[in-house]
C-alpha cells in the first residue's frame, strides 16, 4: 500500500524520471523480444540445415572417389567417374525413358477420364449421381497400394505382366483428381454455359473450349501431384515388371543398390540415387512456388 502510494507520488512529482523508467522498460522488452526472435531464427535455421544433411551426404558421396569414401576423414577429392560407371553398369537411360513414358501416359489418360467425370458431377443431373459420387470417395480412402495383391492377379489375368501398360492401367482413373476438378468446374459461372449454348455450342464443345481452358491452374496442380507421385512410385512397378526393358527408375535404383556389395560401392549408389532424384529435385527447385502452391491446393480441396 505504502509502496504504491510512494510510486504514484514520485510519478507525479518527477514525471521526467518516470517517463525514463517507462522508456527503459519498453526498450528492455523490445530487446528481449528481439533476442527471442534471434534465438528462434537460429534454432529453425539449424533445423533446416539438419534437414539438408542427407542431401549433402548424397551429393558428397556421388562426387567422391571410391577409396576416399571409406576413409573416416574429410576429403576434397572430386570425380565424375561414379556417374560414368553407374551409367554403364545399369541402363539408367532406358529406365528414365520408361519412367517418363509411364508417368506421362498415366497423366494423359487421366486428363480425359477426369475431365469427363468432373463435368458430369459438376453440371449434369443424372440419376444415381450421389451414389456414384460416394463410390468415388471409396477410392480415395482405399488407395491402390493396399490392393497390390489383387491388382497383381488382375494384371496377370489380362496377360499384361511386365508391360508398361500393366504399370499404368490401375491409375487411369483418379477419384482424387475428379474431386479437385469438380470443385473448379462448379465455381465457373453458369452464364458462360448459357452464352455458349446460345451461340450453338454443344456440351462437349463447352467443356473443351470453356471449362478446360479456364481450369488450367487446377490441371497444373493435378499434373504436379500426379507426376511426382508416379515418378516416385516403387512397389507396384517392382511387382509388375521383371525385365530391364520395362523397369522404372525407382526399381532400377533399388536393383542396382542391392546388386552392389555392401559398403564398398556406396559412391556408385549415391551417384545412382542422384541420377534418379535429380529430375524431380531440379523441377522442384525451378518451380518451387508452383510445386508448393499446388500441393496446398490439392490438400485443402482433396
Amino acid at each position, binding site marked *: 500500500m505504502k509502496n504504491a502510494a510512494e510510486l504514484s507520488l514520485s510519478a507525479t512529482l518527477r514525471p521526467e524520471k518516470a517517463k525514463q523508467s517507462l522508456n527503459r522498460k519498453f526498450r528492455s522488452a523490445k530487446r528481449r523480444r528481439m533476442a527471442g526472435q534471434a534465438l528462434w531464427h537460429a534454432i529453425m535455421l539449424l533445423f533446416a540445415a539438419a534437414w539438408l*544433411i542427407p542431401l549433402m551426404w548424397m551429393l558428397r558421396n556421388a562426387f567422391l572417389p571410391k577409396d576416399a569414401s571409406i576413409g573416416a576423414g574429410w576429403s576434397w577429392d572430386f570425380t565424375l567417374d561414379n556417374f560414368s560407371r553407374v551409367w554403364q553398369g545399369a541402363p539408367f537411360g532406358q529406365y528414365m525413358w520408361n519412367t517418363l513414358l509411364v508417368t506421362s501416359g498415366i497423366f494423359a489418360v487421366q486428363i480425359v477420364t477426369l475431365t469427363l467425370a468432373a463435368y458430369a458431377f459438376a453440371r449434369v443431373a443424372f440419376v444415381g449421381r450421389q451414389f456414384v459420387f460416394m463410390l468415388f470417395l471409396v477410392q480415395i480412402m482405399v488407395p491402390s497400394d493396399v490392393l*497390390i495383391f*489383387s491388382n497383381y492377379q488382375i494384371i496377370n489375368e489380362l496377360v499384361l505382366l511386365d508391360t508398361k501398360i500393366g504399370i499404368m492401367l490401375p491409375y487411369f482413373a483418379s477419384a482424387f483428381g475428379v474431386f479437385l476438378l469438380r470443385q473448379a468446374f462448379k465455381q465457373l459461372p453458369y452464364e458462360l454455359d448459357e452464352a455458349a449454348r446460345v451461340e450453338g455450342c454443344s456440351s462437349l464443345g463447352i467443356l473443351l473450349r470453356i471449362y478446360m481452358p479456364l481450369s488450367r491452374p487446377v490441371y497444373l496442380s493435378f499434373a504436379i501431384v500426379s507426376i511426382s507421385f508416379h515418378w516416385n512410385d516403387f512397389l507396384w512397378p517392382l511387382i509388375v515388371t521383371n525385365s530391364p526393358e520395362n523397369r522404372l527408375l525407382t526399381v532400377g535404383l533399388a536393383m542396382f543398390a542391392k546388386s552392389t556389395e555392401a559398403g564398398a560401392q556406396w559412391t556408385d549408389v549415391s551417384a545412382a540415387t542422384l541420377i534418379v532424384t535429380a529430375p524431380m529435385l531440379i523441377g522442384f527447385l525451378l518451380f518451387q512456388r508452383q510445386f508448393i502452391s499446388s500441393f496446398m491446393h490439392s490438400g485443402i480441396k482433396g
Partner: protein
Amino acid sequence: MNTRWNEKLRRNGFGWGLVLPSLLFLGMFTYYPMLKSAWLSLFEHNLAVRTPVFVGMDNYKALLHDPIFVEVFRNNIWFAVGTVPVSMALAFVMALFADKAIRGKGLVRIAFFYPNMIPMIAAASIWLFLYMPQFGLFARFASWFTGSEVNLLGNPDTVLGSLIVMTVWKEAGYFMIFYLAGLQQIPKDLYESASVDGIGVWTQQLRITIPLTMPTTLFVTVVAITNAFKWVDHLWMMTKGGPDHASSLLLYYIYETTFSFNDQGMAAAMTVVMIVLLLVISCFQFAGWERKIHYQ
C-alpha cells in the same frame, strides 16, 4: 410429355457416359479387387493347398494366432505413434517459421520440403548409408554416444526407431505445406489487435493459431495415420522387415505373404483388415468435415 422424357433420357445417358470411363477403371482396380479380397479371404489357398478350400473365418482366426502378424500389427501401431505426432508438431513449427516474411524463407521451405520430392526408395538408400555401422554419419554419431560400434538397423531395439526418424524427416515438410495453407487463411488483424491488447506471442499462438488451424490438423492427422500404414518401400530397401520382423509393417507383410510365401488366403484376409482399418480412419475425417462446415 414425350419430349420431356426424351430430354431426361438424353441427360442421364450423357451423365453416365461421362463417368463411365472413370468408373470402368475404378471398378476394375478398386471395387472388384476389394470384393475379390473379401471373397478370397474365406478360402485356404497356399502352396500346400493348390485348389482353394472354403474355410469361412478361419483365416482371420489364424491371423489372431499368428505371432508374426500380431507383432507386425504392433509394430505398425508404434510406427504410427512415433511418426504422426512428431512429424505434425514439427510441421506446425516449420510452417510458423516459413510463413513469416523473413530473409531466406525460400531456402527454408526448400530444405523442409525437398525430402517429399524424392522417391522413398532413394531416401531409403541414402539413409541406409547414414545408418551403416562404422561409416555412416548417424551410426558414427550414435557410437560416439555409446562408446561402442552401433548397428542401428541390425538391432531389434533400435531398428523401428531409426525408421521412424527417417519417416519424420521425409514427411514433416509435406505436412508443413498444409499448415502453411492453413496459416494463410487466418486474418492478420486478429494478431494485430491481440498485440495492441498486450497479449504475448506465446498466448497468441495458443489462443489464435492453434484453434484456427484445427481443420488443417484434422486433415493432416488422417493423412498422416493412413500414410503410416502405407509406407513400405523403405523396408524393401533397408531391412526387409528384419531383424526378426522387428521393423516389418502391415503392407510389407502382405507383400511378403503374397510373393514370398505364396499364401493367398492369408494375404487376402490381411488386405481386408487393412481396408477396414483405412475406412475407419477416413471416417474420422468425414465426421470432422461436418464440423469444418460449421466453422465457416
